């Protein structure tokens, strides 16, 4: 009894639902059918523009401009496509056959509009707009196009974008990505994808039989991505890239106040603008397969022998181990014998008796061979690791490499061999197994400049005007006297009359630094310079690395000098 009463209540519900169904499908069905009919409803995809990336002075490193695309709605255009293509051909300057071919390439059953001509200029767009009545199914779409005003100068920072793959689209579906989306592929575009990316929208509209807008049925407004401000100064960024124009290498400048990167350059470079459009991407093969690996950010991904810039670590390790003092003197006859092998100084005639500051100034190998041997490999390895080598610095760019620091244990494990003194000697001058990235060298010299603050460098400063970056440094407890001794050496490198880094001098600035000339295994050596200024109150640290550039004291130091000069002009120093 009760059960049948309950079932009647539910029956009433089902009957009401059926009536509802009858009403919208049978009584009003024709109306809804018209709404959903081919020629009456259109969906225009409204792509949200990605956030801009600005430098510290609000100059854009990445922005967007509005572009016009001529697109076509397949199912509306199919019938009269031949005629339409003939009308369009002279306007677009493309043959009618080619246009038809583009149309045929469209995937059937997919609603996406088909791109007929990308990024056409405004006058052509207007011309087409005027003739749309004769071009059923054709539309002019506006789309934000990514722009990189600095072109090659900041390419490794900005990275580039690329169209999503089918696999990624499926995977990222839950995050609102769809098939035609583009996403960050490298650099900051990739690193901050989740902030930069906007939320795309769509407009569903009712149009009349001639494709004219009647009313909007549904609109999801696109939401722009967030703007990101960097610590980069684009003046420096462009200036340095011009210096590197005919070189392979990397230069990074860091603000010692907060660890913010002022500029980060890698050469050779590429033009990210090409990657931003379908048409442009046809020309990127030269970069992807290009000689000199222009896509690689050498500053964070290149791993090289450190050469003489490593003597900074050797000296500090020697001092900290108490085996040597700033006044310890070693005689340099031009070579030394270790384990029955002869190790040369770079100056064959020798430097004679050398103290630490002289040894730095002359980059005397024999002096540092001796320091290395007295310090011992274990302590040397330990100090090297303390300065962050072999680990990522954590700079906010994707794909950073960690380099390599050898140790006695590593050698035993990997080669089942004991460690030889000859290898200690090699490590002491930054050769042998050691591999470092330029950004690691920068963090090291910054730690010396700031009396032991090991920075985590960063590029980002603000997201949508909100500061997100802060100084992030680990303090290394190093004896002040030892730091002072090393700094005296670094001063002598640049400022003494016989220093190897004299070319790094700049008028009106007191600079300290160290040159490096690293054997590359090829004919030409790698040239290094690490330094900071002003010496008394360091504000900026830099690393200059030139791949197969020759001597550090010539090529790298000269570049550093020019950069210090520019830093003075832009009042960073």
């Amino acid at each position: 009894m009760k059960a049948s009463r309950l079932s009647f209540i539910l029956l009433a519900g089902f009957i009401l639902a059926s009536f509802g169904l009858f009403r919208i499908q049978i009584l009003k069905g024709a109306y809804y059918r018209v709404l959903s009919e081919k020629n009456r409803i259109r969906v225009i995809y409204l792509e949200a523009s990605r956030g801009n990336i600005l430098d510290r002075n609000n100059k854009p490193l990445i922005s967007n401009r509005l572009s016009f695309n001529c697109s076509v709605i397949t199912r509306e255009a199919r019938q009269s496509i031949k005629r339409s293509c003939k009308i369009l051909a002279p306007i677009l300057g493309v043959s009618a056959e080619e246009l038809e071919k583009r149309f045929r390439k469209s995937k059937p059953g997919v609603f996406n509009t088909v791109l007929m001509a990308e990024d056409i200029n405004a006058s052509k767009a207007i011309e087409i707009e005027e003739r749309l009545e004769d071009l059923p199914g054709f539309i002019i779409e506006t789309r934000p196009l990514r722009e990189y005003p600095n072109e090659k100068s900041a390419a490794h920072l900005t990275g580039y974008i690329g169209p999503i793959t089918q696999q990624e689209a499926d995977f990222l579906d839950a995050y609102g990505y769809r098939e035609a989306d583009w996403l960050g592929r490298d650099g900051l575009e990739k690193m901050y994808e989740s902030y930069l990316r906007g939320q795309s929208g769509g407009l569903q509209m009712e149009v009349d039989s001639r494709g004219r807008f009647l009313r909007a049925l549904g609109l999801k407004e696109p939401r722009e991505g967030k703007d990101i401000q960097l610590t980069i100064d684009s003046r420096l960024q462009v200036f340095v890239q011009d210096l590197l124009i005919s070189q392979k290498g990397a230069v990074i400048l860091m603000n010692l106040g907060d660890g913010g990167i002022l500029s980060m350059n890698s050469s050779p470079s590429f033009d990210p603008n090409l990657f931003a459009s379908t048409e442009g991407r046809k020309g990127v093969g030269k970069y992807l397969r290009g000689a000199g690996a222009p896509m690689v950010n050498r500053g964070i991904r290149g791993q090289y022998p450190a050469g003489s810039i490593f003597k900074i670590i050797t000296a500090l390790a020697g001092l900290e181990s108490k085996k040597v003092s700033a006044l310890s003197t070693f005689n340099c006859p031009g070579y030394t014998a270790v384990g029955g092998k002869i190790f040369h100084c770079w100056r064959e005639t020798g430097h004679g008796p050398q103290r630490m500051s002289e040894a730095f100034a002359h980059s005397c190998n024999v002096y540092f061979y001796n320091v290395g041997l007295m310090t011992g490999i274990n302590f040397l390895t330990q100090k090297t690791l303390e300065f962050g080598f072999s680990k990522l610095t954590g700079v906010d760019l994707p794909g950073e490499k960690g380099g390599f620091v050898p140790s006695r244990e590593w050698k035993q494990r990997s080669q089942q061999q004991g460690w030889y003194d000859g290898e200690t000697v090699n490590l002491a001058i930054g050769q042998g197994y050691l591999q470092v990235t330029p950004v690691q060298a920068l963090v090291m010299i910054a730690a010396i400049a700031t009396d032991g603050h090991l920075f985590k460098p960063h590029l980002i400063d603000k997201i949508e005007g909100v500061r997100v970056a802060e100084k992030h440094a680990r303090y290394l407890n190093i004896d002040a006297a030892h730091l002072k001794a090393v700094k005296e050496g670094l001063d002598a490198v640049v400022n003494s009359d016989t220093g190897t880094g004299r070319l790094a001098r700049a008028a009106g600035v007191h600079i300290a630094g160290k040159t490096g000339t690293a054997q590359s295994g090829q004919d030409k050596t790698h040239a290094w310079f690490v330094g900071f200024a002003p010496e008394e109150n360091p504000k900026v640290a830099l690393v200059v690395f030139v791949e197969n550039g020759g001597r550090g004291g010539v090529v790298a130091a000269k570049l550093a000098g020019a950069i210090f000069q520019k830093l003075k002009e832009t009042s960073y120093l």
Partner: protein
Amino acid sequence: MRKKVSFRNFDKFLFLTPILIFLIGILSIYSASFKSSQSFDQTLAMKQILWMAIGSLGVFLVVRVDYFKLKDLVWPAYFLALLFLVLVLFMPARLGAHRWIPLGSFNFQPSEFAKLGVILALSHFFANNRIEFISKRKMLIPFIVVGVPFLLVLKEPDLGTGLLMIPVFFAMLYVWGFKPKTIFLMVLLGAIASPFLFHFLKDYQKARLLVFINPNLDPLGAGYTIIQSKIAIGSGELLGKGFMGGTQNQLNFLPERHTDFIFAVIGEEGGFLAALSVIVLFWLIVKKGFIICGETLERFGSMLACGISTMLGTQAIINIGMTMGFLPVVGIPLPLVSYGGTSVVVTMLSIGLLLNIKMHRPLF
């Protein structure tokens, strides 16, 4: 006298009707989630079929044991359901809600399981206590039995499943012996309290309810789904646009179209005939369930049949009503049709229980 157990009493009709609904569902899911790059075994439809296989297996396991013996499992099942409901709150949120417990590639949805747990627990309590003799204090127990999972489900938040417990509870109270007047009074009280409760809802839930009251309030945002769904169903007219022919569906106008809005796909591609068939098939199951409820003199079985039938019926009506814009979008799946493993398995287990009651009920 107990009747001897045999498969002869297995109600084939009650087993085949859900299968038929399920098949309509599979076609719709396939159509709704079609991607040209996928082979059939990668599709959601294939996954759903696997879940149905598990569910059907469950049916045959459930009917083998006298449902009476399941009584001992009622409270363990109920507390297990509660445990899952608590656990799920600690799971990472997906789409802003803690509704799923990830188990490998499968996401378990505890609220589906909890619905059945609540019905079992209530049936057990109502069967063992007669309303005429119950103490005031003991009277609170059924309210607690429903209240705790209700609040936990709302916390997820899963408004739809939570609200669904209310009519089921009322129907069972009625069968137990509550006067209709008392139940109406409770509904009235709830209606008066709801503006205050409204305050506790999430913003998106508020938006959905407000849009239901006035769809023009936000035709671009929350109203979008309803507009699209109505266009889809309406444009199907009498015979539909044919399998895979729904423009609303295929052109991605319909959000959540393989889950909560699957009925819109049926309406668009199958037309009035297909959509009405689904309604009729659901009614047949519900009717059968209430016949079992009325004919079973043993109280546990009778209560269980009432709870299950009400659950399936209201869930179908609410889901269908919401896709047509007659009821607010509260987000509950259409049983057996919407994509979702837990829902399919739990629904099939419920059907299994109905079958079991019919086969094993003691006849006096």
